[in-house]
């Protein structure tokens, strides 16, 4: 019954049935599952912590991808749910009710409620308006948290302990927590995957592709979008619950809009349009942050331009690059050719601009020259006339002086 050969071949057949994306994601999850072993070997509990953070943010990034990639909603306030989830669980813990049966549902339900309230208004808006209204709602949550004086306000709230499961502090053991986070990530990925392929997911994708067409088919976008928004918010609340547990601390900074920006970054860095992309992006961002922070304390000054370059040149993020590589469109020669071509192009455009500036300057000079000459001629003529007038005046003055002196002399002699 448990013949390993049969199991192996069944597993292989099942694996073959999965798409590349699913296999990649499964591979990622397996890698993460093996990480604690590596950490044990390398003697670093720190590696475990980075892994946990990466997985928690992967959950958040996947939930955001549901909005950005599937529903076509760019939310710039998604970090609010991280904070709400963490605060819900943290507040319960601080009152001595930090048990799994209370804290986890509280985190998810409060996030869902906040998503429902803010989403019901935000989802009515389109495009740019939606981005800004979610940004504003995120800030609103941030400010409410800073004014929660009994729960630390600006300084944040320290949890007495991690969430108790059945009264035990089993989550305190780091490996246990790690695998709980991994299980959550796996579950979220699975559910999200089914969601995208389901009737609901198909409608959402259709509305993003051509809203008019879907309305003409009989689908009213509002209800579907709002549902997606609530689901994404609740899932991110789960991530918040885990985040708060990991550091046993929550502060308003969890909800800051820069955090929301970082979440968007993770999705785009990994590549929107797949579910494994955002997971990869979350992992990559954690590594990037760790690496850059070791270089300099001002690592953001490097990250900023990196983002700009990513947008300008890195279409589709890491997942996009992987896709291109799979299709054979990405080779070292191709990259080198692209780089040299763009440099040449930049150089050529600079040369062109310089030439154009030169031509323009010369043209302006050519136009100005005759005018300058004419002006100079006028001035010269004027100065000649001045001189002539002056010499005339001198002559007249001399004559006048002469006459008056002579006249005076004559009058004096006649006396």
């Amino acid at each position, binding site marked *: 019954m448990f013949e390993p050969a049969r199991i192996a071949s069944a597993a292989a057949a099942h694996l073959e049935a999965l798409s590349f994306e699913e296999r990649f994601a499964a591979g990622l999850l397996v890698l993460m599952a093996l990480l604690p072993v590596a950490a044990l070997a390398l003697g670093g509990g720190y590696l475990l912590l980075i892994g946990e953070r990466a997985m928690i943010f992967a959950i958040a990034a996947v939930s955001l991808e549901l909005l950005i990639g599937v529903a076509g909603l760019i939310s710039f306030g998604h970090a609010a749910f991280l904070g709400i989830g963490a605060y819900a669980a943290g507040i319960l813990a601080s009152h001595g009710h930090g048990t799994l049966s209370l804290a986890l549902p509280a985190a998810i339900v409060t996030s869902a409620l906040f998503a429902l309230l803010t989403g019901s*208004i935000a989802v009515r808006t389109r495009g740019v*308006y939606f981005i800004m209204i979610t940004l504003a709602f995120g800030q609103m949550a941030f400010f409410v948290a800073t004014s929660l004086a009994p729960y630390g306000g600006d300084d944040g709230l320290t949890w007495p302990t991690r969430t108790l499961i059945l009264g035990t502090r089993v989550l305190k053991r780091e490996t246990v927590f790690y695998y709980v986070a991994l299980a959550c990530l796996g579950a979220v990925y699975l559910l999200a995957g089914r969601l995208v392929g389901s009737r609901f997911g198909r409608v959402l994708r259709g509305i993003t592709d051509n809203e008019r067409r879907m309305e003409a088919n009989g689908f009213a976008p509002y209800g579907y979008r709002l549902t997606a928004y609530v689901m994404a918010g609740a899932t991110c609340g789960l991530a918040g619950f885990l985040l708060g547990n990991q550091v046993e601390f929550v502060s308003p900074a969890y909800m800051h809009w820069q955090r929301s920006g970082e979440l968007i970054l993770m999705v785009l860095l990994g590549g929107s349009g797949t579910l494994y992309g955002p997971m990869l992006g979350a992992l990559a961002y954690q590594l990037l942050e760790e690496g850059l922070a070791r270089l300099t304390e001002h690592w953001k000054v490097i990250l900023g331009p990196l983002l*700009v370059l990513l947008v300008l040149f890195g279409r589709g993020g890491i997942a996009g690059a992987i896709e291109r590589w799979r299709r054979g469109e990405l080779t070292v020669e191709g990259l080198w050719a692209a780089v040299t071509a763009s440099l040449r192009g930049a150089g050529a455009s600079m040369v062109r601009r310089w030439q154009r500036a030169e031509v323009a300057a010369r043209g302006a000079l050519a136009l100005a020259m005759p005018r300058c000459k004419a002006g100079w001629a006028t001035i010269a003529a004027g100065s000649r006339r001045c001189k002539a007038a002056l010499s005339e005046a001198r002559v007249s003055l001399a004559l006048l002086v002469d006459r008056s002196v002579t006249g005076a002399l004559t009058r004096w002699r006649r006396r």
Partner: protein
Amino acid sequence: MSTSLLVVQLFNGLQLGVLLFLVAAGLTLVFGVMDFINLAHGVQYMLGAYLAVAFYRLTGSFFAAAALALPASLLFGLAMELMVFRHLYARDHLEQVLATFGVILFLNEGVKIVWGAAPLNMGMPELLSGSVPLMDGLRYPVYRFAIIGAGLAVAGGLYLFVNHTRVGMWVRAGAANAPMISALGVDIKRLFTVVFGFGAMLAGFAGVMVAPILSVEPGMGDQVLILAFVVIVIGGIGSIRGAFLAALLVGVIDTLGRSFMTDALRLVLPPSPARAIGPALASMGIYLLMAAILALRPVGLFPTKGRA
């Protein structure tokens, strides 16, 4: 709740509104004409303040500093447009958001590297320091009046420019339908640069003006940016008139809310919960206002484009 406090806060609200308008005007024009989400507009404001402080340290005079800081911040804005933003006009909003977010990170950190993270201060000009009596027993700083006056003057100038000059006409047409005016022969690239430069200068001007009265620190532009977003969402994207009205509304309501929310709540609640909820509700105030307006009119009060 005394009348004199109310009057003072009304004027403070007006001052905030005028500053918000200066920042929001550039933002809404850039959105309206180029369909470009510029999150980095807030750092333009911050740069104006930092440049003012830097030039003040050089020259010792507020007016000289202002006179130098304005063209400097314009140049900076144009440089950023040339290097980064110009390549983003054709991209979708998500990419614009991410790229300008990167610019914010870069400049916020850059400013920290150059001037340090500690807040900076700048002296107020002699001419405009001191205060004037408003009513009996109530004095209000001259400088704040100057800000309100300067802001209103700029608003008036902007109105004249947009409504009574040819370039202004192109800007208004561009906000309604940019490809159309390009088809009609207007040099759209230059128009975009003009619009962007104008916006940058307005934001920088706001920064220069607040430098003497606020602490100049990294990240000071971020909260102003979000308020500016709220303003243009309420006012309607692309509309300067909308931005003006919404800015004053937001400025006054936010300031009055923060001053009087707790007192207002105390009329209906016992003091302790009022004190607990008051500040939270006050800081939420304008967001609730925005939510309410968007619930009724999802495109804001004076949208310029026909598309909904």
